[in-house]
């Protein structure tokens, strides 16, 4: 989970736990996320787009090349995401548990 807002990150962590995730690793910035990805190999990722003014797309590219599925979570809707990523599942914040389940399912099926 890449998310800069702590409260939001807590909510999503709870949701992921409820969905049955065994381990949840959280990063609050691109740098943190890249460091984390060098150490861990997650099954699926949830990426907030705007990380305190920093775009999350380098992480998206990294994970795309590493073939790790992920979903975007954003307040912008699809308009804030470059066209090349429009095939990925995009969650509009705020979202429910059901939304998250459907998004993750879609990215894993892809």
């Amino acid at each position, binding site marked *: 989970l890449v998310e800069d*807002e702590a*409260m*939001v990150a*807590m*909510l999503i962590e*709870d949701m992921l736990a409820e969905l049955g995730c065994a381990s949840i690793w959280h990063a609050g910035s691109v740098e943190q996320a890249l460091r984390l990805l060098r150490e861990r190999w997650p099954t699926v990722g949830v990426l907030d787009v*705007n990380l305190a003014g920093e775009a999350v797309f380098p992480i998206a590219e990294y994970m795309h090349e590493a073939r790790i599925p992920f979903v975007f979570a*954003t*307040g*912008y*809707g699809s*308009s*804030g995401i470059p066209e090349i990523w429009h095939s990925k599942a995009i969650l*509009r*914040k*705020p*979202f*429910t548990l059901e939304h998250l389940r459907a998004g993750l399912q879609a990215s894993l099926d892809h």
Partner: protein
Amino acid sequence: MHHVVPHHRPDGGTITPDTLHQALWSEEGLLETLPVAVYTCDAEGTITHYNRRAAEFWGRAPQIGDKDERFCGAFRLFLSDGTVLAHADTPMAHTLLTAQPQHNKEVWIERPDGTRMAALVNINPLLDENGRLIGAVNCFQDITLRKRTEDALQRREAELTDFFENGAIAMHWVGPDGIILRVNRAELAMLGYTEKEVVGRHISEFHADQDAIADILRKLADGEALHNYEAQLICKDSSIREVAISSSVFWEDDRFVHTRCFTLDITQQKRAEKLLRSNEQRLRQLLGAIPAAIYTTDAEGRIISYNQTATELWGCCPRLGEDSWCGSWRLYWPDGTPMPHDQCPMAVALKEERPIRSVEAVLEKPDGERVPFLAYPTPLKDDDGKLVGAINMMVDISKHKRAQEALHASEEFSRSILRASRDCIKVLDLDARLLSINECGRSYLEVEDVSAILNTSYFEFWSGEDRFAAERAVERAQEGRVGRFTAHYRTPSGKDSWWDEIVTPILSPSGKPERLLVISREITEAKRAEEQRELLIAELNHRVKNTLATVQSIAVHSLRNGGVSDSVAAVFEGRLLALSRAHDHLSSAGWKSADFGSILSDVLQPFGSGKADRVQLRGPSVHVPAGAAVALTMIFHELATNAAKYGALSADTGYLTVRWKMAIGANPTLRLSWRECGGPAVERPARMGFGRRLLERTIAQQLNGRAKLRFAPPGFRCILEVPIPADQRA
């Protein structure tokens, strides 16, 4: 007439022949005292006696008894017609031959000095007692004076006749009764008649104007002479001759003998006069019709005529024959200095006797209005080249001047606009090649010398899709329409700018596109501001969404930790998400308005999943303002939640129909009906829940609308009316 007593021999009388002879022929004899010339001849013609008067008449004294002087003592003799009369053919010879007297014979005697004398000759034969011819006596008298008078008279009569018959002047004589007595050849020729057709007829038959002939006859009868009385005579071919009749009556002892009418054919003259008159009239009409002011002066410059336009131009009427040079009130040179009338173009033309062309001057009307005009004075000369006057044409050029000034002002105005404009203004030919560009444009394009870029293609400025858009815009302008596009331009120095380009055709007077006008307005600032705004909105969305997500997180944790049931958390989460969706719609439309249909379907989407055929939404596309969009979203979320919990969507058999339309009018209103069917029987709730409170208060107080809720057993119904001000629907 003097008769000579025949010389009879007296019978035994006392008077002897000698005595008698003496008495007759002596120097104091009877014959010498008579004022007549007398001579006698014997039977052979030899002159036997003559008196002094005879010698005087002859101019010579012939020898008595000379056998060579026979019949007459005259030197030479002629007849009246001028033929020579031989002495042997004289009346004397005739009498001696025939013994018959000759009475009143006229002969002309030529004297030796060449003078001539007319003689009236009376000859009687002299017989002896046996009746035998022994001689003759000739008494002759001088009738030269009478003869001369007679000849002159005759000659005059002949001349008169000749004049009457052959003269160039047509003439006729009319009797007191009006009957034509005589008519000459000239008049017959003039009218085409023969003498027979005219003489004996009444004069009035030949006059076309009966009043005129009646007047003529009356005047003549009154003893009045007519001089060039104009009348009309009828020719044989029925044509009319204009004539001038001069006539007077020939009276004899107060008796009207006849009138002598000289008839002068003035048809040509009349025709010429008429032509002249019509020419003059035509000229006047022409002058009157010419839109230019025209007047004429005599050689001294006095105004003798002017047309209507001239008085309009002058604003006053000059006194004919008194005012000179120009009829205007005051005159000025184009620079405003006064121009004395005697220095005006007309005065110069007259003084220098040359035409002057298009001299500009300004006249002032009595009311003070000044009118610029061009003068074209032309001197008029007679056939001999003598100056007789001048004609001047004045052309009012005030309109032209005003138009010129207006044009100048307009051009100056346009230039100043072009100079002052912060737009880049270009003129292209129809092939989109640059013809001109204003100063602002030059500086935008960062070129020093405009000529360096003239004739380059307008399309060169653009690249990629912008170039395509430019071509489309030019095509439209070439078709006479307006082309417009927004494009990006990078200056030679690498400065990025954004432009709003408007391409319009410059039409020829016939309405065909002739050139193209391009007005380029730099919108870089606006574009940047727009980008900035979009960025801000995106940031706002991000903030709002993150805040909502944070609220969600806080609520979920608070409720869960507080031991509140999950269903309560779900209700909260539902409401929060509905609010979030409303913001999504607003953000996609730039926070101005949202499409009502998509708001509704988005709200109903979680409740209708798997039941798509049971939820029917029908209505036109309506945009609602931001505030109303959020409020309506919350209301529909409550209604839908209610339907899913207790109403039509809680049972498999129920269905929901939502219909809306816009009532257009003074107050455009969105009317919506929410209708549930096939669900469980509906009972009116005892308690007023959050949803209903929210609905009624929002509609009535926030949106100034009306809500009608009906909890009827077949299904819940609700009718909403929400005013949507026209200026808030996008």
